[in-house]
């Protein structure tokens, strides 16, 4: 089966029951994507597929052949951090760091959703075409990513800063 991950093509054979998360971690050694709950409750496994964030633990890998998959390894490197990675460092957006790859992939997908005008449940006017991502909007839109260290305030500050710079 052929997979496109972080811009590189991989031909892989695996047990059909394998989740996209296990494919990344166990078969391709892309261990940046984390396994937290393995049941769609924590968001640690968040990756981007064709630019949209999903939970890799709930995805059967076989369904994602030929799609453009991006993991944290595809967003930044130690020598060349993604803007969100740098902002997470600056704002203490983590302690243990386990949820961080999922948080950052989720924030990238969230920003793309906001740019195309996807509303959230706290958006007052569903018919609005422009959405201001204030504190409440960001908290709601990032609620699929849990941080047990409690770094949510730093995470929101980091995401806000990057979004503000992009808008400027």
């Amino acid at each position, binding site marked *: 089966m052929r997979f496109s991950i972080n811009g590189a093509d991989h031909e892989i054979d695996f047990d*059909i*029951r394998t*989740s996209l998360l296990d494919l990344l971690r166990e078969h391709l050694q892309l261990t940046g994507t984390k396994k937290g709950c*393995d*049941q*769609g409750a924590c*968001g640690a496994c*968040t990756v981007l597929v064709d630019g*949209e*964030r*999903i*939970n890799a633990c*709930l*995805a*059967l890998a*076989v*369904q994602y052949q030929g799609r453009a998959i991006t993991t944290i390894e595809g967003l930044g490197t130690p020598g060349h951090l993604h803007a969100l990675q740098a902002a997470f460092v600056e704002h203490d957006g983590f302690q243990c760091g386990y949820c961080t790859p999922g948080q950052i992939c*989720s924030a990238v*997908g*969230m920003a793309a*959703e906001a740019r*195309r*005008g*996807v*509303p*959230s*449940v706290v*958006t007052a006017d*569903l*018919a609005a075409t422009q959405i201001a991502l204030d504190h409440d909007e960001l*908290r*709601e*839109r990032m*609620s*699929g*990513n849990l941080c047990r260290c409690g770094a949510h305030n730093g995470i929101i500050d980091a995401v806000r800063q990057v979004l503000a710079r992009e808008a400027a």
Partner: protein
Amino acid sequence: MQRFEYHRAADTAAAIALAARAPEPHYLGGGTNLVDLMRENIERPRTIIDVTALSSAIEARPDGGILIGAGAKNTAVAEHRAIRERFPMLARAILAGASAQIRNMATVGGNLLQRTRCYYFYDDAAHCNKRKPGTGCDAVEGFNRIHAILGASPSCVATHPSDMCVALAALDAIVHVEGPGGRRSLPFGAFHRLPGDRPDLETALGPAELITAVELPAGAAGLRSTYRKVRDRASYAFALVSVAAALRIEDGKLAEVRLALGGVAHKPWRAATAEAALRGKPAGADAFRAAAEAELAAARPLSGNAFKIELAKRTIAATLSELAGARP
């Protein structure tokens, strides 16, 4: 997880033909519920038929109605401009459910077929008539804070977990299905079943029948509508009680009212008693409270969920007051 054969269906006819002859088949959409249940060995299909390549189109019709392909992702429905403008309660209900990641994966067809989140259904060591018919129900005498207060039976007190389906119930959606015997259309209220003595049977679907589309009739288009969800945390949790409501006021009186409840029953609960009590009445807090009382008169609490009765009444009254612009 039990071993299975995987097939990706190229079209509806091929999917149905395969489901009709393959051993222990199960259609697969986004997998957000099914994959989890397979991993827990609660669902054990031997043949997986991936139907995500089938219709995901959303067709806004000139008459005001909308036809949604069963493969449409939850996010795609919630962000669709015509749905946000004509049926805001549906967009808001979808956005109140799960997380953004899951809404990006989950399909409309799969949302209708979600299994309950009852702890005992998920626990293979517990008694559950839904998972294993005839074995009993540990929820009736167990931890049942999240369980049903309406339409339950001694066999099963589970609730349906969907938010989207509560809005679809209020909107009189039509479920289009196709199977070995051809095509048919079901009114939304006839799609899901109450538990009775067969809680393992959850829908009206026959063997190998596939949901192909969900239709929103023009009737409720443009009504003032919303969805309010009450849960244990502010986001990313299932409903304790939810309310989908729409109304039209003419000369201070309720010319049209649509009301459905989530988190209270084995299926999305269309509040027909409350609707009948309100039709033609002056819009106001007293009328809303009285209608909520009438609807919940049939409620039967379990040991741990009596709070849901008053919560449902208050949420109904508050949601209708918000829509009517009245003081809650």
